[in-house]
């Protein structure tokens, strides 16, 4: 019974990580690839950690699994967020009709401006000269 439960946990986790890899390969845009890899990959690795902890079964293994899942839950979104910010600042445009973030993001102080100021500056390196609000 426990073997069936852990097997199903590991199988669904591996399936989610396969979905993450397929999304990483097939999505047309860097940001879509990033969100596919981050979200599906996180849930997949959490399920695999749970399967391993339950399979090993001892208290030490369960504590290891708990700490590892806490670690993954903390670090994977942070890594994806940092990479997305770095990619946006390095000039990779998202595949959207209108870039709502253009001109509102200060690259040095990482402050957002939400007023309706004219966001006329072209995206790229010249946004650095803008003053924060």
């Amino acid at each position, binding site marked *: 019974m426990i073997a069936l439960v852990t097997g199903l946990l590991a199988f669904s986790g591996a399936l989610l990580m396969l979905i993450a890899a397929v999304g990483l390969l097939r999505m047309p845009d*860097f940001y879509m690839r990033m969100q596919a890899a981050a979200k599906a990959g996180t849930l997949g690795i959490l399920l695999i950690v749970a*399967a391993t902890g339950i399979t090993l079964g001892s208290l030490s293994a369960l504590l290891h699994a708990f700490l590892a899942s806490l670690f993954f839950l903390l*670090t994977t979104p942070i890594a994806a967020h940092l*990479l997305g910010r770095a990619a946006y600042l390095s000039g990779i445009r998202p595949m959207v009709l209108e870039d709502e973030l253009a001109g509102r993001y200060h690259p040095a102080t990482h402050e957002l401006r939400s007023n309706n100021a004219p966001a006329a500056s072209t995206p790229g390196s010249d946004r650095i000269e803008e003053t924060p609000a």
Partner: protein
Amino acid sequence: MTERLVGLPVSSPLLTIAMVILVAALLLALVRIVRGPTIPDRVIALDLTASLVVGLLLLLGAVLQLLAIVDIAIVLALIAFLGTVAFASLIERRTRE
């Protein structure tokens, strides 16, 4: 606490199938590393590759009943996270110059 370091291997076919699926996902992520058009694409593919390897290690620890492999997996995940953060700050700093 009595804890076996090495036990009898668990023969569950679902665990083996999960490991095969993880290897297939690893191949797909490697394709994205090779032909990613930009550096952040390659870095996010490397991040997913690292977590796939961590998943493989965890399943190997579950099959072999080895708790030490879980420690190795946690350390590998920590190093991969630090590497991703370092790559992100490198990309950001190289843009600002």
